[in-house]
C-alpha cells in the first residue's frame, strides 16, 4: 500500500446502474484494465485501487464487475476492471462486455496487461485492442516470472516497435506502478508521442476488409467504426453479424453475406496475420532461454497431471479442505450458534408477556434466519480461501485436467468436479464455486447438479434414519443410497446436457498457467468481497424465506401439528401414500427446506407425546421399503433455502425455480418407483 490515506471510496455505483458515467466523481478520467487470464491483471487492479474497490455485476449479466479509484499527481482516475479474455471477438459474454465497454464508454486509456513470461500469446489482446478507438498502454507484468524462466523482455525495444507506452511491472510487489501512472498521464495529456503500429493484415485481407467496409458504407451502427465492424464480420463474430444485419438494407447485407461465405477461412487468416505481426514486434525485444531447461512447472506437472498420481493429489487436497473446514470453521459455527441461541433466550425473556407469535417471529423466524446466514460464513470463508489459493498458485487448472478424464463422459467440464465434490460438505459454497468455470453453459450445468450431491446435513438425516430402521445393515443401505445419488448426478448431467444444451460436449481447452507463489492480499480481498456479496444478495433472501417458513410452520396456533405446513402435509398425503409415507413424513420433507438437518428435529416434534425416543418410534412409522423410499426422496428433494438463494444469486430466479421444480419431481418419482417396485417384488413390506 503506497498511500492509503489519500484514497477515497467510490460513491456507491448502484448495482443496477447501466452505465458508469453517472458515478464518475468530478468527471474523473476512466482507465479500463484489460488482459488475458493469468497475466496478473487483478494484481495490477489491486495495486492501483487498494481497498477503494466496488464489486458488482455487469448490467444484465452475472459476471463480476470491479471498479475502483486511483489518485495520481492530484488527479483521480476511475479504474474499471474488464473481464479477463483471450480475445475481443464475442465468443463469450466476457469478451462482449470487454469490447463493448471500450467502444461504447470510450475510456480515456485502456491499459492492456500482458505477461512477460508469455509475451506472444498475451500480446494478442493488444493487437485487438489497437483496432478499437481508445489509446492503449501496455503493462508488461510479471517480468520477475519471465526472468525466472530465463526470458528477457526489453520494454524500451517493445515500446519502440509498438509505438505505444510499454511499462515493465511486478504488480504483486507494486513495482512499476509509478511508471504506469506516468505513462497513463502522458497519454491522456498528449505528451507521449502516441503512434501505434497497427497490426497489418496483408494485401489480400486488407482488400477484403475494404470491400466489406465499402458495402457497410455510412450505415454503420453507432458508435461502431465501420472498419472494425468489417474485421469482426470477417472473423465471424455473431454479435456484430446480427447487429450489422439489423442495420443494413437487405440487398447490401446479402452482398456482405456472399463475401463472407466465400471467405469462411478469413478468421484463421486474420488470427495468423496478428500473430505474424506480434512475431515481428517481439523479435528484437525478446530473448528466449536455451532449449532443454526443465522448469519447476514441468517438474511439478509430471505428478500433478498424471492420471493416477494427479487424482491422488486432487483428492488429497479436497480432503484437506474438508479437514480445514472441520478444524477452523466448525468451532466458529458452534460459537455463532451458541451466540444466536443465547440471543434468542435473552430476547425471549425480554419479551415476556408479548404475544407468542411475536416471540416466535423474532426468535425462530428472524434470529433463525440470521443464524443460518452467519453459520454459513465461516464455512464459506474457508472454502473461498482454499479455492482462491488453489486458483492463485495455478493448481486449479491441473485438478480440472485430471478430473476431466471422467467428468467429460457425463458432459461436464473437468473443473466441475471441484464444486460437485465440495457439495458433499455444503451445497452453498459448491454453487458459488461453480464460478471457476469459464463458460456459462458449464457454470449453469454444474449449478443445477450441485444440489443433487448429498451435503453434510442430508448425510446426518440419512445416517440417523437408516440407523433407526436398519440397525446393523444401515451401512449397506447408506452406501447403496449414496451410489444411487452418484448415478442420479451422472444421469441428470447427461440428460441436461442433451435437453438443455443440445448435447454438445463441453469445450475443454484451457490454459495451464505457470505455478507461482500465492498473493494472499488478493486471495483475502476476493474472499472478503465474495462473502460480502453473499450476505447482501443471498443473505437477505435467506432471511425473508426463513421468516416465511417459520410462519408456515408456526401459524396460526404456534404448534406445528396445526400449522399451515401441517395442512399442506395432509393435503399431500395421497402423494405420500404412493411412497408409503404418512402426512408427518411429508411435513418433515417440506420443513427440510429451511435446513436439511432439521428433518430429524421436525420428526421429533411431530412424533412427540409418545413415551419412546424417535429412533424407537420410526420403525413403526415406516416399513423398510418406505424407509428407503423416504431417504431417497430426502436426498434428492428440493435444495434448502440457502442453496436456492445462492442459485438465484448466481443464475437468476428462473434457474432457481427450475431447480426447485425438477428436484421436486425427480425426488418424488424416485420415491414412488422405489416403493412400488419393492411392493411388487414383496421386498421389505
Amino acid at each position, binding site marked *: 500500500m503506497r498511500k492509503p490515506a489519500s484514497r477515497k471510496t467510490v460513491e456507491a455505483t448502484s448495482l443496477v446502474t447501466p452505465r458508469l458515467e453517472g458515478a464518475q466523481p468530478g468527471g474523473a478520467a476512466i482507465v479500463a484494465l484489460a488482459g488475458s487470464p493469468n497475466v496478473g491483471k487483478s494484481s495490477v487492479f489491486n495495486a492501483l485501487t487498494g481497498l477503494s474497490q466496488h464489486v458488482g455485476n455487469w448490467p444484465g449479466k452475472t459476471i463480476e464487475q470491479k471498479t475502483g479509484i486511483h489518485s495520481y499527481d492530484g488527479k483521480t482516475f476511475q479504474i474499471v476492471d474488464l473481464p479477463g479474455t*483471450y*480475445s475481443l*471477438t464475442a*465468443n463469450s459474454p466476457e469478451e462482449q462486455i470487454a469490447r463493448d465497454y471500450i467502444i461504447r464508454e470510450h475510456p480515456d486509456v485502456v491499459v492492456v496487461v500482458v505477461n512477460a*513470461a*508469455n*509475451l*506472444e*500469446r498475451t500480446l*494478442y489482446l493488444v493487437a485487438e485492442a489497437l483496432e478499437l478507438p481508445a489509446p492503449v498502454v501496455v503493462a508488461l507484468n510479471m517480468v520477475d516470472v519471465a526472468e525466472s524462466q530465463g526470458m528477457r523482455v526489453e520494454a524500451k525495444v517493445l515500446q519502440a516497435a509498438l509505438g505505444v507506452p510499454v511499462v515493465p511491472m511486478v504488480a504483486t510487489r507494486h513495482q512499476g506502478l509509478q511508471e504506469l501512472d506516468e505513462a497513463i498521464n502522458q497519454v491522456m495529456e498528449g505528451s507521449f508521442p502516441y503512434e501505434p503500429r497497427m497490426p497489418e493484415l496483408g494485401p489480400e485481407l486488407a482488400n477484403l476488409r475494404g470491400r466489406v467496409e465499402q458495402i457497410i458504407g455510412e450505415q454503420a451502427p453507432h458508435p461502431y467504426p465501420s472498419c472494425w465492424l468489417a474485421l469482426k464480420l470477417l*472473423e*465471424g463474430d455473431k454479435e456484430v453479424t446480427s447487429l450489422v444485419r439489423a442495420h443494413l438494407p437487405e440487398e447490401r447485407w446479402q452482398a456482405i453475406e456472399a463475401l463472407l461465405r466465400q471467405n469462411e477461412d478469413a*478468421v*484463421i487468416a486474420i*488470427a*495468423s496475420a496478428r*500473430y505474424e505481426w506480434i512475431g515481428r514486434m517481439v523479435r528484437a525485444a525478446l530473448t528466449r532461454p536455451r532449449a532443454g531447461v526443465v522448469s519447476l*512447472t*514441468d517438474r511439478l*506437472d509430471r505428478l500433478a*497431471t*498424471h*492420471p493416477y498420481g494427479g487424482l491422488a493429489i486432487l483428492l488429497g487436497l479436497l480432503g484437506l479442505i474438508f479437514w480445514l473446514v472441520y478444524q477452523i470453521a466448525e468451532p466458529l459455527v458452534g460459537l455463532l450458534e451458541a451466540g444466536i441461541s443465547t440471543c434468542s433466550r435473552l430476547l425471549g425473556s425480554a419479551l415476556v408477556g408479548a404475544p407468542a407469535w411475536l416471540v416466535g417471529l423474532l426468535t425462530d423466524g428472524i434470529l433463525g434466519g440470521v443464524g443460518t446466514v452467519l453459520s454459513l460464513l465461516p464455512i464459506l470463508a474457508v472454502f473461498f480461501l482454499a479455492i482462491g489459493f488453489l486458483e492463485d498458485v495455478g493448481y486449479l*487448472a491441473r485438478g*480440472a*485436467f485430471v478430473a*476431466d*478424464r471422467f467428468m*467429460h463422459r457425463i458432459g461436464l467440464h*473437468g473443473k466441475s468436479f471441484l464444486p460437485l465434490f465440495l457439495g458433499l460438505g455444503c451445497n452453498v459454497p459448491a454453487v458459488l464455486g461453480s464460478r471457476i468455470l469459464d463458460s456459462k453453459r458449464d457454470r449453469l450445468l454444474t449449478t443445477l447438479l450441485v444440489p443433487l450431491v448429498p451435503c453434510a446435513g442430508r448425510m446426518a438425516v440419512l445416517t440417523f434414519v437408516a440407523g433407526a430402521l436398519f440397525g446393523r445393515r444401515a451401512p449397506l443401505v447408506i452406501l447403496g443410497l449414496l451410489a444411487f445419488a452418484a448415478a442420479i448426478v451422472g444421469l441428470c448431467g447427461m440428460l441436461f446436457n442433451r435437453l438443455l444444451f443440445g448435447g454438445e*460436449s*463441453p*469445450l*475443454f*481447452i*484451457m*490454459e*495451464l*498457467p*505457470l505455478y507461482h507463489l500465492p498473493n494472499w492480499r488478493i486471495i483475502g480481498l476476493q474472499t472478503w468481497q465474495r462473502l460480502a456479496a453473499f450476505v447482501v444478495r443471498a443473505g437477505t433472501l435467506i432471511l425473508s424465506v426463513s421468516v416465511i417458513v417459520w410462519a408456515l410452520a408456526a401459524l396460526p396456533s404456534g404448534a406445528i401439528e396445526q400449522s399451515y405446513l401441517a395442512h399442506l402435509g395432509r393435503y399431500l398425503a395421497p402423494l405420500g401414500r404412493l411412497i408409503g409415507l404418512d402426512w408427518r413424513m411429508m411435513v418433515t420433507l417440506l420443513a427440510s427446506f429451511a435446513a436439511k438437518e432439521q428433518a430429524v428435529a421436525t420428526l421429533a416434534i411431530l412424533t412427540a407425546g409418545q413415551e419412546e425416543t424417535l429412533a424407537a418410534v420410526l420403525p413403526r412409522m415406516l416399513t423398510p421399503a418406505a424407509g428407503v423410499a423416504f431417504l431417497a426422496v430426502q436426498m434428492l428433494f428440493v435444495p434448502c433455502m440457502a442453496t436456492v438463494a445462492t442459485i438465484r444469486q448466481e443464475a437468476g430466479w428462473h434457474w432457481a425455480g427450475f431447480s426447485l421444480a425438477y428436484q421436486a419431481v425427480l425426488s418424488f418419482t424416485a420415491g414412488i418407483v422405489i416403493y412400488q417396485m419393492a411392493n411388487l417384488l414383496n421386498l421389505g413390506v
Partner: protein
Amino acid sequence: MVSSQMEEYLEAIGKLEERGELVTTSALAKEIGVAPSTVTEMQRRLSDQGLVLYKPRKGVSLTAAGRDLAASVLRRHRLWERFLHDILGIAWEKAHDNACKLEHATSPDLEYQLAQALGHGTACPHGNIIPDAGGEMQPEAVVPLSELVPTQAARIVSIRRESGALLRRLEALGIRPGAVVRVEGVIPKDNLFVLSVAGRGETVEHDIASHVMVKLLSPEQSEAERIVPLTDLAPGETGLVRQFLAGRGLVARCLALGFTPGAEVKILQSFGRGPVIVLVRDTRVALGRGQAQKILVVRKENAHAETSQSKDS
C-alpha cells in the same frame, strides 16, 4: 485326390512365387520347416499330378492348375486368419497356426460363407492379399523394407513371413499393415535400419526388414501421411498446426490461444483416452481428446536416431 499335405506344399510354393523367388528345394524346405529330402519326395508327387513342373537344380514352378489350387488354399488360409483375428480376436501369430489346420478342412460352401461373413476383405491380418474366388490376385507393387534408402517413406502392405516370433517383434515395434515408416538411417556395420514408425524411433535388423513388404510413398504422399490429428503425436513430439476440423467456437478459442496455422505444438502429456497437454507459444494448454482430434498438424520429423540410440543403451 489332393491331400492336405500336398495343399500345404502348393500353398508354400504359391507364397514363394508370389514373392518372386526361385522355388528351390532348399527354399521350400525352409518355408515349410522340413528336411530337403522330404521335399524332394513331395515335389515328385506334385509333378506326377501335373500340379508343378519340376526341373532338377532349378526347382519347381506351378502349372496353371497348380496355381489355381495354391490360390484356393491361400484364399482359405487367409480368410480363416481374418476370421480368427477379427471375429474371435485371436492374436495374429496364433491365427496363422490355426488357419494352417482349418484351411484343409474347408469345403467350397464354407469358404463362400466365410467370405460373405467377412464382407470380402482383400487382405489377411498380416496384409497379404486374399486371392478372389477365381484364384486371381492383384499384387501391389511392393518392395521389401530392406531395399529402402534413408529419408524414403513407405506404407507397410504385408508381412511375408508369418512366424510367431517375427510377428510378435513387429507388433511390439508398431509395424503393421497400413502403418507408415520412414527410413531415417542405415548402419551398414551392424546391418541395422533406423526407422521412424508413427513418430517413434525404432531400430530393426536387416533380416526383419526383408520380410516387411512396403509400398514406397512419393514425397507428396509422405507429406500427406504426416498430416495427422494432434492426438496421433506421442509425448515429446512436435507438429505444425495445419487445419481445424472444428466448428467456429472451438476454432476461435484455438486461434486466440495461439493455435494458428504454422504454429509449433509440442505434446507434453497424453495418456490413454484422456485429455492432452500441449505447449504452444510458450503456453501450456490442456485440451480434451475430442478437441485435440479436430486439430490437424504436420508431424515434425525430429532426431529419431538419437531417441533410438538412447533406447538401446
